[in-house]
């Protein structure tokens, strides 16, 4: 178990490196252009260690039980957002990098990205905002090699809160995208 933990932290570190090198081009709504991808691969080459390739492959080799392992980043299947924002935090990008590698290694798997918002404001606008959050996660996954047909985005807006309260302590838990694996 301890050794396993060590392996996870090593992978997270490696993935973090990939992200640090490539994340700058992944935010916002602009489509990813070829230069961003080129920079990612050439930077990986410059690092020369092959660690990213190892990370991706390792996650790809993991079985479905990795989703149930509390020590695995794959165990985390919710990412959270600021108010009226669809921008991913760096911590969430790490979690998503693990899922991207896992999905890329398991092309038979699918994932539903369920976008949610807090209860404030207009319900249909919140459906739009939940969709926008789901699409942010989709872009991040696709950028890291997940096939588009493995991903489905569903927005529930404010209709399915994770926490029922009416203040920020509940709202921050409700502004989220949940990754729901097919066949899970």
């Amino acid at each position, binding site marked *: 178990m301890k050794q396993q933990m060590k392996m996870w932290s090593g992978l997270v570190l490696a993935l973090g490196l990939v992200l640090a090198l490539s994340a700058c081009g992944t935010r916002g709504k602009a489509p990813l252009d070829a230069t961003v991808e080129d920079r990612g691969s050439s930077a990986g080459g410059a690092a020369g260690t092959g660690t990213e390739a190892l990370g991706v492959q390792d996650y790809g080799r993991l079985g479905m039980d990795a989703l149930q392992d509390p020590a695995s980043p794959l165990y985390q299947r919710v990412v959270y957002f600021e108010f009226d924002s669809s921008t991913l935090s760096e911590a969430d990008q790490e979690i998503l990098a693990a899922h991207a590698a896992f999905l890329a290694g398991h092309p038979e798997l699918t994932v539903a990205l369920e976008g949610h918002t807090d*209860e404030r*404001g207009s319900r249909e*606008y919140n459906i739009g905002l939940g969709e926008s959050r789901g699409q942010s996660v989709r872009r991040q996954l696709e950028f890291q090699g997940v096939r588009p047909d493995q991903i*489905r*985005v*569903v*927005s529930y807006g404010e209709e399915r809160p994770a926490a029922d309260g009416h203040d920020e302590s509940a709202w921050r838990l409700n502004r989220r995208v949940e990754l729901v694996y097919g066949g899970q």
Partner: protein
Amino acid sequence: MQMKDMMRWLLLAALLAGSRGALAVLTIEITQGMEGASPIAIVPFATPAGVTLPEDIAGIISANLRRSGRFAPLPEADLIARPREAGDVRFQDWRVLGVGDLVIGRVLQPAPGRYEVQFQLFDVFRSRQLTGYSIPARPEELRRVAHRISDLIYETLTGEPGAFDTRIAYVTAEQGAEGKRYALQVADSDGHNSRTVLRSPQPLMSPAWSSDGQQLAYVSFEGRKAAIYVQDVGTGARREVAAFDGINGAPAWSPDGGRLAVTLSRDGNPEIYVLHLADKRLQRLTNNAAIDTEPAWSPDGNHLVFTSDRGGAPQLYRMDSRGGSVERLSFEGNYNAGADYSADGKRLTLVHRDGRDYRIAVLELDSKRLRVLTDGSLDESPSFAPNGSMIIYATSAGGRGVLAAVSADGRFRQRLTLSGGDVREPAWSPVLRR
């Protein structure tokens, strides 16, 4: 009222009277305002000896007029006389009480199970009748007749059409043993006669009335993804009209009833489309990397107002009904969304962020002046009454979702509470017939 119109109306009433269930009632409590309301006396309607009516017609009329905020019906105990016929009315007595208008009526029973409801409205100070009708009704139509009479009184005295003989659609959510249960319900404008038109274990959203008041479009997640349905309110027959990948949301009927403006994300981003119901043809109106949603047709069908965060935060925009000539409408504050047009096309009601609070506001389209009408913190889903006098919206009270209504000038407010669960997303029907 022409005889032909009356027959048509009765036929409709008969068709609609069918499927009512015993359900939670929305109770209405007036929470603000009454100043400036005109005193009016509504005398209990006389009945033939030994006949007890299933509905208190004068009571329904009184409650309606009181809820409008424009009238202050005299409490029944303060009525100094109970005239049955015009000849029994002593105007001097009512003048002394300061009552400007008087309603009397009687219900005849020409045959078992058939009624004839007659009423007369008098101007007390001029000692003359302003209007009077005789309306045939079956027992199950009496409430509706009382609403119709309320409309006739309101229109005669204010010069504006009434909106009592209308309905509201809304969504309820109740916590059951196996998670939340959702229902789409329709009730009379006074909260009575509520009936469920759809139940689902998955969220229901965004009910929208067709302009003839016969059909509802709504969003259902019953397939674990959003789809838009159109349902006939009378028969319950329904069909799926949009189930594309991604969002299928925010349906809004064109005034001619042939098209739905909807929000779809099938092309990767929430955009507004027009769906032609006859042939399912789709026409894309917006093309922007931002969120574009919540379309609302102008009553003349020439424009659509919608919410977009293309400027960085949600604001209201207007475009022509083919998608051109986009113009920003809201400038005050950093959150304006969810607009609904008044029937005269001159105003929008919308959700406006006021500091930390989300409140209902009215935007005058000519002057672009915005006026906040409510004082809640999570107010949403405003919908104009078809006569523009009131706005119904969703708010919260005691941690629960409730409905509330506010007069379009903000002076008068009332709350509609369901006996259990959350109530949300009210949509006020158009005028039902005529």
